[in-house]
């Protein structure tokens, strides 16, 4: 056990699974599967397993996604790390082919594959395609693919083990802004389930639901609100498909107040689904939704930082609601 960064924790899981299974492959593009962490050995999958198993080629994210699918169909476990610039290049392949394949074949297709889809770090100044946050919604509508979005290094490692061991194809979203998080992460393999939300804090006045890159600011806001005397329940979705409805409904049945927080564009952000599921199950609750406006992120930090949901926005909305 040691303090580990997100990427170190994830590659630890991948390294373990690749050592266990000599057939497993990893495809990358810009980001070599390398991580270092103070006091721990450097992980370099490319040098450890060789280029027959760990390989990059050109700028062709469709091929990357298709290749791991093809490997899975041939009986080999496979994973790929798709950089955020190509996050939607293989969308059609995942949505229309992989996502339907098990069902279309009456259960015959085997797809033990993981697509790690990087989302931008939402770095101010980068603009548009280099700051956007929207893939959660697109991938979450697809049936037949498990879409998850861990928000801590601990979950990132445990969900990577679970994803690599799952017979289902998994879209594993990785908001690159979380790369700076560090926490205690066990050295041994362990699984975090792919279909359970996490209650990060219990409370009775208000339920706040978020996921991925929304979580750090939500936790910050919850701290302030708690200090002010509000009893806040904080839920981290983690699983977007299948969403853990029960945890959400139980919480709001208790608090009768639901605030959703998303970095994704307002229209059809994951929070819309959360509210819709709760509203059809809980009567008499009140709702609010914080999200990125329905506009691309502009370059100017002044504009961008004003738009992006942060702890203050969450605190303001929570106060309005309770």
């Amino acid at each position, binding site marked *: 056990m040691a303090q580990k960064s997100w990427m170190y924790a994830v590659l630890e899981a991948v390294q373990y699974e690749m050592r266990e*299974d*000599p*057939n497993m*492959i990893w*495809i990358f593009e810009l980001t070599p599967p390398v991580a270092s962490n103070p006091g721990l050995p450097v992980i370099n999958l490319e040098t450890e397993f060789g280029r*027959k*198993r760990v*390989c990059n*080629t*050109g700028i*062709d994210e*469709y*091929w990357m996604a*298709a*290749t*791991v*699918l*093809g*490997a*899975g*169909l*041939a*009986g*080999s*476990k*496979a994973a790929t790390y798709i950089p955020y610039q190509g996050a939607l290049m293989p969308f*059609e*392949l995942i949505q*229309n*082919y992989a996502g339907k394949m*098990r*069902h*279309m*074949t*009456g*259960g*015959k*297709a*085997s797809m*033990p594959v993981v697509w790690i889809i990087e989302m931008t770090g939402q770095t101010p100044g980068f603009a548009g395609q280099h700051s956007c946050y929207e893939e959660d919604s697109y991938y979450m509508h697809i*049936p*037949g693919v*498990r879409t998850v979005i861990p928000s801590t290094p601990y979950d990132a490692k445990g969900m990577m083990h679970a994803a690599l061991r*799952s*017979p*289902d194809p998994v879209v594993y979203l990785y908001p690159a802004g979380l790369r700076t998080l560090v926490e205690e992460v066990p050295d041994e393999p362990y699984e975090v389930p792919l279909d359970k939300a996490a209650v990060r804090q219990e409370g009775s006045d208000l339920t706040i639901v978020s996921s991925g890159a929304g979580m750090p600011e939500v936790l910050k806001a919850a701290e302030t609100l708690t200090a002010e005397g509000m009893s806040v329940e904080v839920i981290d979705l983690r699983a977007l498909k*299948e969403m853990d409805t029960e945890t959400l409904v139980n919480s709001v049945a208790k608090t009768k107040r639901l605030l959703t927080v998303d970095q994704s564009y307002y229209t059809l952000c994951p929070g819309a689904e959360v509210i819709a599921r709760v509203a059809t199950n809980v009567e008499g609750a009140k709702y609010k939704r914080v999200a990125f406006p329905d506009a691309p992120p502009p370059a100017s930090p002044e504009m961008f930082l004003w738009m992006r949901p942060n702890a203050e926005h969450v605190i303001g909305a929570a106060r309005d609601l309770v």
Partner: protein
Amino acid sequence: MDRNLNSTAPLPTEDDAPASQSRRGFLQIAALTGAVLSTSGRRAFADGDIGFHAKDLPDEKLVDMYRTILRIRWHERTQADQMLANPDYRGYNHFYAGQEAVATGVCAALRNDGPFEQIDLVYSTHRPSGHAIAKGVDIPKMVAEDDFRATGLNGGYAAEMHLSDPSVGFIGADGMIGPGHVTATGSAFAFRARGSDQVSVVFGGDGTYATPQFHSALNNAKLLDLPFIYVLENNLYHQYAHYTYSCPHKDIADAATAYGIPARVVDGQDVFQVYNAMKEAVDRARAGGGPTFIEAKTYRYYNHWGAPGAKEGELGAFGYDPLAITSFRPEREVRAWMQRDPVDICRDTLVDWGVLDEARAAAIEEEVKAEIAAAFEWGLSQPLCNPEDALKHVFAEGTVAARQFG
């Protein structure tokens, strides 16, 4: 279904059979004694002496190829007749008749049975029934599937365009043009990574040339020297557009050559020419020599989809000319191609080679017809699906929730 493979040693195949059985040996003797082979004018010798590798095959294998062509043909004709004459029949097909020699020649050069981790994989298209039969899919189950039966090959979920049977290496049909060819390179990648000598084969039409994924598949297969074979069936049309609307090459194979991929154009009506090219490609791939591209020039006797223009009991479709199609094939083109029928060419060649006589050839055809008739009888008497099963097979385990009731 997940398979974690550890052993990847190849199985011996029929092709490794002792040379004394070889047809080429026989022919060499015939040549020495001055015997001249009479060949039908309907067969082409575009690629030189067409029987090079095929002549080495044991008789049974050659007869099997003939039988496979017939199975495909009679499955087609029987299904067309069902569509035309049986009001209760609900299945449909993208008919493959006319192209049978391609699927047959290709799959005859592959490993089609044995453990999953040793057989070769085939990715098919929206026009899969010929590929499926040639790869060894169970025909009665396929017939049941095509008519949406619960006991069909894929439980009624798939129907024609998504037929799949990994147990014979038939990854399956797919109705989309594009994803399959790239995905097939991924299987080849996995084979190379795990040190297996399996090969991954994708069938594609002339229509696949224009897809962005065409570049992706060929470029990466070449760069990584993958055991990947692209079999492009150029039947001149994608839907109703002639291939020259979407391709600047006369031979699409030239596009593959540009990447440095060995490419061959073959007469797709001649099963032995297809087999020869494929054998070479498979040998190269198994030996680590990388990808091959094979363009088979061929033709389909029916229209793009279903049986418009066809008549019960007759082969092919004529007289159907939909309004305002940018380019629609002329009827005389269909008739001209039907002169070089893959069934005839295969039978005549085997008769020439002394593998069959006309009587035996005709007897085999009757056997196949009966087999197919029985397959339809069984398939169409299978039970229909249970509605609630629709919620299964979304994930490997469990069912999803019904949502249509609110």
